[in-house]
């Protein structure tokens, strides 16, 4: 049976070898060490010193950390529902085999696929209070101009708006999820006299619910992380720290102030909170397949 091939010893495990080594170095080890650093005082120069829960106590007292957490909380509370609703709406509107639908699906995916730095630069200009097109557009319909980048409330809102268009991944997921619902179900419901709204309310929504929850869970982790580039490029955390979200705060703590222990503690706290929420609401059975 065996022809004495000299590659015969090569078991499937060898294929995994490079991945196991590199991902240990770049993902597993850094994550575990960061979790450990949260309990130390570490300034990147001298060796870390064990301080127990000290970092967490200092975080609780820090004004800027509280601001960062509140900013992130507001951002997530606004962006996640908007992004999920947007992805659902576009997925239901844009399913169909005809060519125009295909083109529009590409358009909806566009803001997700283009480089985040370019996207942020474009929005830096769109949100410009004086000659940005958004305010010119508001003016054209008789609405007052808004200080998008200089008013704390509107700066935060601006971040939410630009994130609301980057919904390609959720959109694709829901398009595919919608395809899993058989057309027969809708036909049966129509025969029983269900109108469009009822079909949506009693067929589409319940069947898509696990997917929506999956999406919300993922978005809690992803959308917060994705604030880094826009808040770095457009506002650098300002005005008055209104757009200092957790990733930017961690960056400043770790790389500007070399408070690596504190940064790690903040990170661990946020990871635990978002991770737990995600675990609580996600029904993983839909992805098991």
């Amino acid at each position: 049976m065996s022809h004495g091939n000299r590659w015969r010893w090569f078991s499937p495990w060898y294929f995994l070898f490079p991945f196991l080594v590199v991902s240990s170095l770049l993902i597993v080890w850094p994550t575990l060490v960061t979790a450990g650093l949260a309990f130390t005082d570490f300034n990147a120069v001298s060796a870390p010193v064990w301080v127990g829960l000290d970092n967490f106590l200092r975080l609780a007292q820090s004004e800027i950390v509280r601001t960062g957490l509140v900013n992130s909380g507001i951002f997530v509370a606004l962006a996640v529902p908007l992004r999920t609703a947007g992805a659902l709406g576009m997925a239901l509107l844009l399913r169909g085999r005809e060519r125009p639908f295909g083109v529009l699906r590409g358009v909806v995916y566009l803001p997700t696929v283009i480089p985040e730095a370019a996207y942020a630069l474009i929005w830096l200009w769109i949100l410009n209070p004086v000659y940005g097109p958004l305010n010119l557009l508001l003016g054209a319909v008789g609405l007052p101009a808004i200080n998008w980048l200089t008013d704390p409330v509107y700066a935060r809102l601006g971040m939410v708006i630009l994130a609301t268009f980057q919904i390609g991944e959720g959109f694709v997921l829901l398009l595919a999820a919608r395809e899993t619902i058989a057309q027969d179900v809708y036909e049966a419901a129509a025969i029983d006299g269900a109108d469009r709204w009822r079909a949506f309310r009693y067929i589409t929504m319940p069947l898509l619910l696990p997917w929506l929850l999956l999406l919300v869970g993922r978005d809690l982790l992803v959308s917060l992380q994705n604030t880094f580039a826009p808040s770095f490029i457009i506002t650098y955390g300002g005005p008055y720290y209104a757009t200092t979200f957790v990733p930017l705060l961690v960056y400043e703590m770790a790389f500007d102030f070399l408070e690596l222990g504190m940064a790690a503690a903040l990170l661990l706290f946020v990871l635990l909170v978002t991770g737990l929420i995600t675990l609580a609401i996600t029904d993983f059975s839909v992805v098991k397949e």
Partner: protein
Amino acid sequence: MTRGSRHQIGRIARLLAASVIALAFFLPFYWAVVISLRPLGSPPPSTIVWWPSEAQWSNYTAIFSIVPFARYFLNSVRVAAVAVPLTWFFASITGFGLSRLPYRWRRLLVPLMAIMLVIPGVAFWIIRFRVFQFFGLLDTLWALIAPAFMGGNPLFILLFYWTFRRIPQDLYEAARMDGASWWQVWVYIGSPLSRATGAAVVVLAFVKFWSDFTDPVLYIFDTGKYTLPVGLQLIRQLDQTNIPLLMVGAVFMILPVLVVFITMQRVFWRERPTGLFPTRSRARRERI
């Protein structure tokens, strides 16, 4: 009115509504192109410009002399040229190896990949910095390429994994019976049969490496090694108000992604991550 024609009207109404909303997704990019063609240093327009009146195509060459744009561009090209093929190769072999493991290992490793997928990047910024420092990769383009050696992103590996699981297992078995090693099975069966997934991964990997903003911010300090996303940030710091120039840079950055995305459109939508779940339309396609 017949059922059919009512259905048709609903479809057209849906298309109209969708077009209007989709416009909002497209408008920012259109505006960026229009504004990039305004004379450099000219006062900003006080009304919305829908059409460039005197298009300054020379802006697109001027940017090369105003900042070391060619250098940033070249660095970005270098990173993508090395990282994309490596990503394809490592994602493919890792996905293949994973798909060949016994069930009890797959059951353990596949969810583990999914977990790695959702760990936010911030979680490993700090220590990855030290790892790169240790290996002497800090402030080199290799720090940006490094993730390619683990298949770029666990998602890419899972895409290949699902594809390799879908290939009829008899094919592998037959080759094994003929004395082929697993390596040969990947070269002669696995890799040709996963061409569509491979194309999708190449698109996604190109977007990932070309667009990467965070990694160069964290690991590159020498401005001579800047890639486009951070290089543009530099223009912004030099000349805040030169919006046309900034938009020229943005368009330059977007263009390659757009070209790749549009040419690979078809593959992308067919091989989209979740499209790999056995949906009805897929089942129908495969029966034909």
